[in-house]
Every structure is written in structure tokens, then in C-alpha cells.
């Protein structure tokens, strides 16, 4: 029975993280799959969302634990998250994380988004690094490399903390469903049509009177906002965050692999890709014998990415154009 419990717990935490990756992946699909923006700085918005949410809800710091962190703790106290009650704050915190990411994307985008594909990519990669380095070095902001621990849980105390993932899971899924339908509606609207037109041929879009720059900015900000929401959920799910969690490997490249695997240009593919790849990554620790070696697992994950891209270059669910 103990074994069964372990498996169920594992499935719970798997679904929570996969759901969060799926939300971020929908954001990436808006960027790359629909608008054609080559964003390899997902980590920037992932981290910004997580830190914004944490700073807003963290209780005043305990001086023994937090030596430098001062800004966020006072902020949560000043805003009175205590009095309103954290559970009610939860949706507001998600919106705040989204808003911060959208604002940063809009600002950065207004400088760099005119750059051609590859060059835009490198500036986003730089943004990801810069955000992580700020949280690493500026101790007063979020306690530097020690990170933030003991991030409060939404709907805490309903069940044994052991089973908390199953309380949080429905919330993640609700957010995922909302994000999916919102993005789907936008994609099917005239706005989505202009976005696709920009991906297909920027000159044509510009020549039929569309302000390509503005539309790109909007799409960039919207996708970034979704990534921020994913980041906020991640902070609540993990209960603690450190800057190291947002290194490009797990916070950017894995998400890219999920998108390409699932099929870019298609939100359903993006969501499926997140669940499939995360299933492969998180279940590979159960491989028997020498295959369980963590380094060999890494190699196997790499090989799987290569093989899937060779066999199904358009992803598991290719982009379909079904519109009435």
C-alpha cells in the first residue's frame, strides 16, 4: 500500500508541474507558434512571475532566516494581505504577476522587437540572464541565492500537507483551462488573424495597414503574462524558490522542447507537449538498473528529443487550420 501511495503522490506532483509548464507553453506558443517571435528568454518571465507572487504574499521576514530580504516582506504587510486573507488574494496575485510580466515585456519589446528573428532571440536570452542575476545579486529584494522559503499555500490546512498537491491541482487545472480558452478565442479572432499574418509575411501585414510593431508588442506582452502566471503558480507549488531554479536549461529550453514536441502553432499541441515531455522526464527516475543513473537519464532525454524531432518534425499535434 505504501508503494501505491507513493505512486499516487508522484502522479499528483507530476500533474501540478506539468499543468504549470502547459500554461507557460501556451504563452510560448503565442510568441513563437502564432506570432513567430523567437523568445529564448522564457526564464525571465517565469522568474518574474514567481518572484512577484512570492514577494506579494510573503509574511514579514523572520530576521533569523532572512538577513537581507526587506523589501518584499514589508510590502506584503503594507498591502495588508494578512487582513484580507491569503486565499482571496490568490487570484489577485496571479493577475499581478501577469501584469508585471506584461509590463516588462512591453518595455523591453518596444526597444528590441523590431530586430530580426535571430537577433531578437539573443536579446531575450540576455533578458532571462539579467532577471536571474538581479534576483541572485540583490539580496535586499529577495534574499539572493538563499531564495524565498515558506511561501504560504493557498487553501492551506484543508488536507494533510502530504497530500497538498491534490488541493493545488484543481486550481492549476482551472487556470490552465481559462488560459486555454482565452488564448484559443484570441487566436480565432481577427486579432489572432493579424498575428498569424505577421508570422507568415510581415511586409504584407504592414502593407494592408496593420501596425506590425504594435501587434507584435501586444502578442509579446500577452504571452509573457501567461508565463508570469505559470511562474506564480510554480512558486506556490514548490513552496520555495531560488534564482537557480530559473537557469535557462529547465526554465527555457525544456519548455521549447515541449512546444516543438507537441506541435507549435496549436495550443492543444502545446499543452499536450508539456504533459508528455514532463511525463518522460519525471518518470525516467523510475528506470531500473543502470538506466536509473541520473546522467544516463539526461542522455536518454536528449536522445528522445532528437528522435521525436526526426520522426515527427511538426510535433505530435500538427498545426491545423480549423476555423468556421
Amino acid at each position, binding site marked *: 500500500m505504501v508503494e501505491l501511495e507513493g505512486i499516487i503522490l508522484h502522479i499528483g506532483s507530476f500533474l501540478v508541474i506539468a499543468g504549470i509548464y502547459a500554461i507557460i507553453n501556451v504563452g510560448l506558443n503565442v510568441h513563437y507558434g502564432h506570432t513567430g517571435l523567437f523568445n529564448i528568454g522564457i526564464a525571465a518571465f517565469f522568474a518574474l512571475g514567481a518572484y512577484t507572487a512570492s514577494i506579494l504574499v510573503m509574511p514579514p521576514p523572520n530576521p533569523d532566516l532572512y538577513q537581507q530580504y526587506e523589501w518584499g516582506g514589508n510590502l506584503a504587510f503594507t498591502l495588508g494581505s494578512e487582513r484580507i486573507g491569503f486565499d482571496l488574494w490568490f487570484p489577485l496575485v496571479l493577475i499581478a504577476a501577469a501584469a508585471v510580466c506584461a509590463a516588462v515585456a512591453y518595455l523591453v519589446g518596444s526597444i528590441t522587437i523590431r530586430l530580426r528573428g535571430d537577433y531578437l532571440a539573443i536579446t531575450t536570452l540576455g533578458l532571462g540572464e539579467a532577471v536571474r542575476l538581479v534576483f541572485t545579486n540583490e539580496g535586499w529584494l529577495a534574499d539572493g541565492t538563499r531564495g524565498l522559503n515558506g511561501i504560504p499555500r493557498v487553501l492551506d490546512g484543508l488536507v494533510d500537507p502530504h497530500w497538498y498537491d491534490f488541493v493545488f491541482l484543481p486550481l492549476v487545472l482551472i487556470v490552465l483551462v481559462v488560459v486555454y480558452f482565452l488564448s484559443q478565442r484570441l487566436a480565432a479572432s481577427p*486579432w*489572432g488573424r493579424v498575428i498569424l499574418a505577421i508570422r507568415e509575411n510581415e511586409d*504584407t501585414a504592414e502593407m494592408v*495597414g496593420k501596425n506590425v510593431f504594435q501587434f507584435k508588442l501586444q502578442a509579446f506582452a500577452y504571452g509573457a503574462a501567461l508565463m508570469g502566471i505559470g511562474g506564480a503558480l510554480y512558486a506556490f507549488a514548490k513552496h520555495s524558490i531560488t534564482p537557480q531554479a530559473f537557469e535557462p536549461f529547465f526554465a527555457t529550453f525544456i519548455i521549447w522542447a515541449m512546444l516543438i514536441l507537441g506541435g507549435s502553432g496549436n495550443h492543444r499541441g502545446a499543452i499536450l507537449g508539456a504533459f508528455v515531455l514532463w511525463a518522460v522526464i519525471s518518470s525516467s527516475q523510475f528506470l531500473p538498473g543502470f538506466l536509473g543513473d541520473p546522467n544516463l537519464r539526461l542522455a536518454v532525454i536528449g536522445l528522445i528529443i532528437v528522435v521525436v524531432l526526426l520522426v515527427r518534425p511538426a510535433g505530435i499535434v500538427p498545426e491545423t*487550420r480549423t476555423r468556421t
Partner: protein
Amino acid sequence: MTEPILKVEDAVCAFGGLRAVDNCSFEIEAGTITGLIGPNGAGKSTMFNLITDMVPLQSGRIFFDGHRLDGIPPHSVARRGVARTFQIPGELGRMTVLENLAVVPEGQIGEAMFTSVFAPGLVRRQEERIREQAREVLGLLQLTHLEEELAANLSTGQKKLLEIGRALMASPKLVLLDEPAAGVNPTLMRNIAQTIRDLRDERGITWVIVEHDVPLIMEMCDRVIVMAEGKVIANGTPEEVRSDARVLDAYLGGVAA
């Protein structure tokens, strides 16, 4: 004589050392069809790029409807009523033919993120009108049967027609057509020429057409401008241009070289 709708004054554009457009001036009267012809490399397509601000003007001025056209972003040029087609079709490949046209009209309320999410009813009603208009244009170009086809799968000729369709969808005052006839079957092209004349008469649309098919230009145009090596060398009615010695020179020179 009516006020010209388009006025180009001393336009200059150079790439490196080459003056692609060199001190060009001409006027286009509203409600006319003008042919812009000349040997390869005469600067005709560059002229279109200058008018639509795809390429910045290095000196000179361009007026449209009495307002400066140069120095504003291309999408603003389009919104003032100038539509153009590309010599190499700029179709939106992974979108359907109908979508290629429906994307064009300006002032779509669904293009704002907020309304497209929160006012789907309004958006849908407008969308129906736009689709109707798009189907009308498709009928005009005899592309109705390809409505749901992805634009990438069209033949070169069909893509050219789609270009014209896109220009028509914009409800323009001035349309710049860059080699519309290349790859289009001649019978269909004659129909399209008739459509262009009808649209000029019914909606007062002004047309400027770059084309290598000189007989076609002579047949359908009210006026003809001839360019060679970045300069305007002749400007008049088809009859005047036909008998112009410099034009013959430019063309024969082009053939000899």
C-alpha cells in the same frame, strides 16, 4: 484639369553607388489608369517601394491627396488609401485564401484584444460582413472554389490574383499593381483588365500598373509613364508614348545590352 491624387517630386533613392530612382517627378490624376513601363532595372518597383514607404526616400517629396506621404510608416500609407501588390506574391502561406482577404479591411473591432475577448457578438457580426465582401472579391477574380485552400498551395497565377484581391479588400483610392499579368492566363487577364476599368468608373479607384506586357498596358491605360535607369523618360497618352523616339531607344538599348 483635376487636382492630381499622387504627386512625386524629385524622388531620389540610391543603394550603395547605384541610383535606383534618380530625380523622378510625375503626377497621377484621380480616376485614371496609368501604366508604368520600362526595361528591367529601370526603378519601377523601387518607385512603388518609395510611394509606400517600404524604402525611405533620400530626397524629394511625395504627396497623396494633398498630404505628405513620405516619412510615415507603411501601414499609415495603407490606411490613407494606398494599396499595393508585390511582384513576388506576398501571400500568407499557412492561412486560407479567405483569411488572406478577410485580414485586410481596416477598423476591425476584433483586432483589439479586449473586444475580441469580451464582445464576441459584435465581432461576429462585423466578421460576417467582411467575409461576404471577401467572397465577392473572390468571385470577381474567379477564385471562389479555392476559398478554403491554404494560400501556399495556389499556383503562381492564382497568387497574383490573390494579390489583386487583397488590394481590392482595402477599399483603396489608389492601387499600385506590380506585374499583375505575369503567370496569369491571358483570357483571365483580359477579364481582370475589364474589372479594373469597371472599378475605376464605378468607385473612382485610381490605378498605377507596372507591367512588362506592353500591348496590354497600351490597351488598358489612359496614360503611360516610361522609366529607364531611374529616370522618367516619357509621360503621356499611349499614342504619344508609342511614337516617342526616346522610348524606342531605351527599349532597344535594353535589348541590345
